[in-house]
């Protein structure tokens, strides 16, 4: 003879941990092991949010519009996905290196540089430039680097900006 216990929610005494079996949300502050019990199997973080980005160039300045500086992120475990469009309101002779701030610090692998995958597509760039840009993320970095591509070697991207330039961004990276 089988028996059945019907419950909506299982919760610890403090309400810190809960498992909603019907409607509602479950809460696991410590994370969930999936496919094993090692640290590599622990999903311990999920977060959605916004980051107000800044563009920094080797010299000069690039100022973003108030509504065009937001990047949106989703973090699952150590993987951060970022999307958004940055819009330049004004510039003051930007040149040299070019970096875009990030919502989380990148990780530092035992070998090689931090990895990033994705696309940045500029539009309405300064004259003399095309809209081909590569992104690179160093180890333990709080910003990613932009380089002009489409030529034999990468070049600093600081001078691609002018008023109304946009950067459509969509990339992923690992956090520290």
């Amino acid at each position: 003879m089988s028996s059945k216990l019907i419950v909506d929610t299982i919760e610890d005494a403090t309400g810190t941990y809960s498992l909603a079996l019907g409607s509602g949300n479950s809460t696991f502050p410590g994370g969930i092991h999936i496919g094993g019990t090692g640290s590599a199997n622990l999903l311990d973080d999920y977060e959605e949010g916004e980051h107000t980005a800044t563009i920094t160039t080797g010299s000069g300045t690039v100022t973003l519009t108030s509504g065009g500086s937001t990047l949106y992120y989703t973090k699952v475990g150590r993987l951060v996905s970022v999307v958004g469009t940055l819009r330049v309101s004004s510039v003051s002779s930007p040149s040299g290196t070019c970096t875009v701030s990030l919502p989380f610090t990148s990780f530092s692998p035992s070998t090689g540089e931090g990895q990033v995958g994705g696309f940045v597509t500029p539009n309405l760039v300064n004259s003399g430039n095309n809209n081909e840009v590569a992104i690179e993320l160093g180890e333990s970095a709080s910003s990613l680097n932009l380089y002009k591509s489409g030529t034999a070697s990468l070049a600093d991207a600081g001078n691609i900006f002018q008023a109304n330039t946009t950067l459509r961004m969509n990339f992923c990276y690992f956090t520290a």
Partner: protein
Amino acid sequence: MALTERTEEDKIEVVGTFKHVQVRTATVIERGSNEISRTYHRHVLAPDADITGQSAEVQAICNAAWTQAVKDAWAAHLAEQEEK
């Protein structure tokens, strides 16, 4: 009952070799004591960051974490990355 909005730095983390300080700011909408929504905003401070505009708590954490040795190591790291 009226809705109220407040912000709080609900998570301040010191991460990685170079003690980057990650700050999460939560915007909380409440009706009385009931939380209606919570959204997050993130920013990261590297050891060479200007922290004058940060909260007193964040400044204190930065100043504690960013010893001269950390700042020197970060500067050396940036120089090394520049050469790559």
